[in-house]
């Protein structure tokens, strides 16, 4: 299927949603052109390819755009069904369970983690952190159930949920480093902690994950910008 397949990824290196797509492409062994977007100055191509949300990631397959990270990941699995491993089981119930947990990562984990960063008050933020840890505890149970004693949510090999959660790993690791608090605590969530280590060692992950120090620097800069903006807004009142 390789001949004539032109894959272009419009992305931004820090975005966990972009990392998801890179993980899927790498795990499937698909080569692609990586286009780094300046999110402060979005390209014509990005805006015309994703007019609804104007966000990254966007995957262009022979010029046709696909948007929304998990929609893209499933597309990659289906359009390149013969290439590399499948990200979803062939069993309908297992597929449903995987889709359920992938949705959970977005609805509960991402939401709470964003709140822990961007909450308007300290109270908001700590509520976000609390919910994030609760979600991780739930995902620990999910991993136990889905892995069936193997190493990944997908079982023996990576699947949809590994990609969904894996995309977030670099941010979460950087946050761990900055706060000094373990997010994938080997005591509270031993399976997840082991899973995170395992995932990071995969070739596909090494290709997709941003460098940790670069990630920390990026987050610190963002936090400083947010603090400055908040201070400016406060002084205007």
């Amino acid at each position, binding site marked *: 299927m390789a001949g004539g397949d032109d894959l272009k990824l419009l992305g931004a290196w820090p975005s966990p949603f972009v990392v998801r797509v890179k993980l899927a492409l790498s795990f499937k062994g698909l080569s692609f052109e990586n286009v780094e977007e300046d999110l402060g100055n979005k390209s014509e191509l990005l805006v015309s390819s994703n007019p609804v949300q104007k966000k990254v990631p966007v995957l262009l397959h022979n010029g046709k755009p696909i948007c929304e990270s998990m929609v893209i990941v499933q*597309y990659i699995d289906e359009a390149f069904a013969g290439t590399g491993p499948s990200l979803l089981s062939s069993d309908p119930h297992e597929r*449903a369970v995987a889709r359920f947990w992938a949705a959970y990562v977005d609805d509960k984990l991402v939401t709470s983690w964003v709140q822990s960063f961007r909450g308007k008050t300290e109270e908001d933020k700590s509520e976000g952190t609390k919910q994030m840890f609760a979600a991780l505890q739930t995902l620990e149970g999910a991993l136990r159930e889905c892995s069936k004693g193997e190493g990944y949510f997908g079982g023996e090999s990576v699947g949809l949920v590994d990609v969904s959660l894996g995309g977030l790993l670099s941010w979460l690791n950087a946050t761990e480093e900055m706060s000094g608090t373990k997010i994938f605590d080997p005591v509270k969530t031993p399976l997840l902690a082991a899973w995170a280590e395992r995932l990071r060692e995969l070739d596909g992950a090494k290709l997709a994950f941003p460098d940790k120090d670069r990630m920390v620097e990026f987050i610190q800069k963002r936090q400083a910008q947010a603090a400055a903006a908040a201070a400016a807004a406060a002084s205007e009142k």
Partner: protein
Amino acid sequence: MAGGEEAGKLQLLGAWMSPFVIRVKVALQMKGLRYEYIEEDLQRKSDLLLRSNPVHKKVPVLIHDGRPVCESLVVLEYVDEAWPKTGPPLLPADPYDRATARFWATYVNNTFFQSWRTLFRSMTAEQRAEAFKNVVPQVETLERAFKECSKGKDFFGGDEVGIVDLALGSFLVWIRVVDELAGTNLLDGEKFPGLATWAERFLAVDAVAVMMPEAGRIMEHYKGFLVKLAAPAGCS
């Protein structure tokens, strides 16, 4: 539901007023699948519901041969995949078209619904006006989506009702009830001709007409909901 397909044991845990449950009911009807429907009292959830959906404790839950499937859009894909030769497909065959359908179903569930929910929960005329103003851009987007997906045919799914039709269509009676109470007209035929005609056509589909709750009943339920919302709560 004559001549229902032998599906193995199928149960649907639902609540009559829930658009998310309606999606699944219509899909099962379209597929001609026989199932046991269990109406849940959401104030007093059954053990079966709590066991079957321990994470969210919500309806709908489809239980097939004892194995639960949760989250309405996940259930729709499951129904399509577990009974591939039965009834019309809910998702297209082509991977690119499938991605387009999933994109819009996600948009309806996340972007549109989050926005419309604010309108639904509005208690004053002021709140309603503000919320309504914020939903209109999403309806504009969906009008364009309809043109793109339908390609001149009747539904987002083309000739047949598909996952996007079910995702958005399940809200239609609710949209109309909220409109009636608020004096608004969200799917205005003049501004959104595509969606307005699509809505009529969707509601007229046999499987939909059979499963949609009655507007009067929804209105009563909505009024009760608004009263509860306005009542000073201890903590919520």
